[in-house]
């Protein structure tokens, strides 16, 4: 599968027309999806250009020296500096998923992490409304234990919403599945069953929309196989961002997602002041990218048919007045400065796009590559396609 600039532009035009038709006839059965697979990697937890794409100081050698040569590196991506718009993980992720900036109101919080709900349709909703793609092939791979990212599965738009939501892979979902299975099997002693019921109720309380508990049969089977392989004890799973890589690789084999977003997050540990957590987490993501690339290239369903879009949710501060200049990401200039790498069939190889690009352009570009229109504020980057 190869996207040329011509097919990209044609896809863009047909997406506009399809969007018009879809709104005129919302009940018509969507067409089968025949476009490229897209893996959207959130180089998350907030990373700066300095530790990623700047050769002398990068902790991501595979990303910079191997992947960047395979596609179009866009060093000058920025998050628009708007009033009431923060450089946070939740907002940055929503910018990527919806292509829109908003001043979000928290609908809750879990610890220091705010719960934000998309107001616009997400890429998953656009895809699933435009094409006949089942939920388990529109996948979010979330952080290790982050129910607050369950809210990224769909937005509040009246023409999209829950019917077009994505499925989620993450430890939170595994725990829900495991507890439901344990209670269904009923093999545990009564005191352990009571404890399992209690834990399940607690986990369910994080999911006020109720979507996490209604998994599709494919997802149930995925988790059953995961349990067979790893056992019930999460202590035996890969940990941290390595878990996301393993989940994503297993999903490629078993669920065959057409659009998958991998939400890496561990560089954010530097909020607690240990600089090596930041650099080591960047290295772990870099290794994850290498493993994902290897998995894609080994799979005939994905090899030559998959576009990678790698982009941070936000940058980090570059504050010379602090002991750890990148400890936080509090709306500083550097926290608005990010980058992106897009590579795959039809993308110009080894190109450095020397233009200022807005973060919301990534959603528009994903939409155009996959053949659906988004309401993104940014423009689709047609110039990176051959």
């Amino acid at each position, binding site marked *: 599968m190869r996207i040329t600039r011509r097919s990209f532009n044609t896809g863009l035009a047909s997406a506009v027309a399809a969007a018009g038709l879809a709104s005129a006839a919302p009940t018509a059965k969507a067409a089968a999806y025949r476009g490229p697979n897209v893996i959207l990697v959130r180089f998350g937890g907030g990373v700066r250009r300095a530790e990623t794409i700047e050769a002398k100081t990068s902790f991501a050698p595979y990303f910079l020296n191997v992947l960047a040569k395979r596609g179009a590196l866009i060093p000058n991506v920025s998050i628009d500096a708007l009033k009431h718009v923060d450089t946070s993980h939740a907002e940055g992720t929503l910018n990527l998923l919806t292509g829109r900036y908003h001043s979000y109101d928290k609908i809750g919080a879990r610890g220091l992490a705010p719960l934000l709900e998309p107001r616009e349709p997400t890429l998953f909703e656009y895809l699933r409304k435009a094409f006949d793609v089942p939920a388990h092939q529109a996948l979010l791979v979330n952080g*290790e234990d982050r129910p607050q990212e369950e809210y990224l599965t769909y937005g509040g738009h009246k023409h999209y919403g829950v019917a077009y939501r994505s499925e989620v892979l993450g430890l939170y979902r595994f725990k829900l599945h495991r507890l439901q299975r344990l209670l269904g099997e009923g093999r545990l002693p009564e005191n352990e069953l009571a404890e399992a019921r209690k834990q399940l109720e607690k986990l369910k309380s994080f999911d006020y929309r109720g979507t996490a508990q209604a998994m599709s049969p494919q997802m149930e089977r995925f988790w059953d196989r995961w349990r067979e392989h790893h056992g019930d004890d999460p*202590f035996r799973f890969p*940990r*941290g961002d390595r878990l996301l890589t393993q989940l994503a690789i297993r999903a490629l084999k078993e669920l065959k997602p057409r659009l998958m977003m991998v939400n890496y997050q*561990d560089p954010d*540990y530097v*909020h*607690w*002041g*240990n600089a090596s*957590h930041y650099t*080591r*987490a960047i290295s772990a993501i870099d290794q994850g990218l290498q493993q994902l690339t290897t998995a894609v290239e080994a799979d005939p369903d994905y090899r030559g048919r998959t576009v990678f879009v790698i982009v941070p949710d936000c940058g980090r*501060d*570059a*504050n*010379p*007045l*602090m*002991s*750890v*200049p990148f*400890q*936080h990401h*509090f*709306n*500083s*200039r*550097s926290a608005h400065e990010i980058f992106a790498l897009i590579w795959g069939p039809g993308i110009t190889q080894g190109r450095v796009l020397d233009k200022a690009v807005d973060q919301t352009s990534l959603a528009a570009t994903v939409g155009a590559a996959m053949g659906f229109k988004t309401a993104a504020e940014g423009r689709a980057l047609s110039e990176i396609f051959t």
Partner: protein
Amino acid sequence: MSVVLASTAMPAATPSPYRFAWLRIPFSAAVAIILALSPITAILVLGWLVRLMRREVAIAVLRERLGINRSAAMSMLASRPATAPLAPWTGWLRASSERKSWAGRRLGGLVETARAGLAASLVLALATLPFTALLLLSWWAGWENSFNKGYEQAWVGPSLAILGIGIALFVLPHLPMGLAHFAAERRFSAMFELPTLRALIRARRWRTVWLALVAMLACLPIALARILPVFIENLQPGFADLPPDLIEAAARNWHVLPTVYLVLALILLRRAQARCYARAALTLPLEKAPFCHAIAEQFDPGQGRAETRASKRTLRGALISTLLLLAIWFAFIAQLYVAQFANHGWWNWLNHPLIGLPWVYRPL
């Protein structure tokens, strides 16, 4: 090294012989500010503050024992060769103990300052390291473990932190009296004479609580000076676009301002703590606080221990004042945690400039 002063008849108070003495205060404070800008020279500032405390103890002893004003107390100190060096404001060069040679009198202060600074650094490090090291280790080990998802030993970091906070809550309430006792007696062990320190605190219980509260509040601007730079680009739009030399100048200035505040706050705070100590020390037996009693006996022989101004001892009062002290010092620790979360520096676990070495950590 304790000072034993020969007891003689009380002289009449005479006017202070030190003309332009007031000029010495801003001058020596300015020198202290300059020296407090680097961690090595800050040891001298610590020594100077210890000497300042000793002088303040001597003045407060006379004021307490004789019911005279500050100026009269200074004049009385000046009237005797043994106490005369304690009378003028503590300078950087002039010795504050009796010296025979001209050079010793004129430059002995520098040696005294260096010696007192090194000694105070050592005793403060010994007193505080048991909890500061634990706080540092708990933060490092706790987050290192969290980053590595070491759930199996997740208890280690928080347990170390709780232990460190517990030790801090034992050490910190004793520290101001301990430092004053050390300054007066010039003995390493003075900092660790727990029964004496507890007796001193009991004697001036409410004053100790009040001074702990003042010290805790005095730490707020230091904490703010660490927290505000986090938001520098929000406070000063365009900061990131400044040329590097201007950014470095801003960092330097940012370091100077808290240092100015720190030195001035320490001068006031250490003097207040010294006064509190002196009044408490006079209620103790001679062997517990020989320096204070020696000063008192020098000018007011045979009057014995002062009882009148000691805090009234009741169980309820002891309980409330102890709880207040613990709450105040807990607030100090909480402040440290908040500042560390905002702007982390490993050194800041080991040293708080208002408690230990008077140096504000700077990244640039």
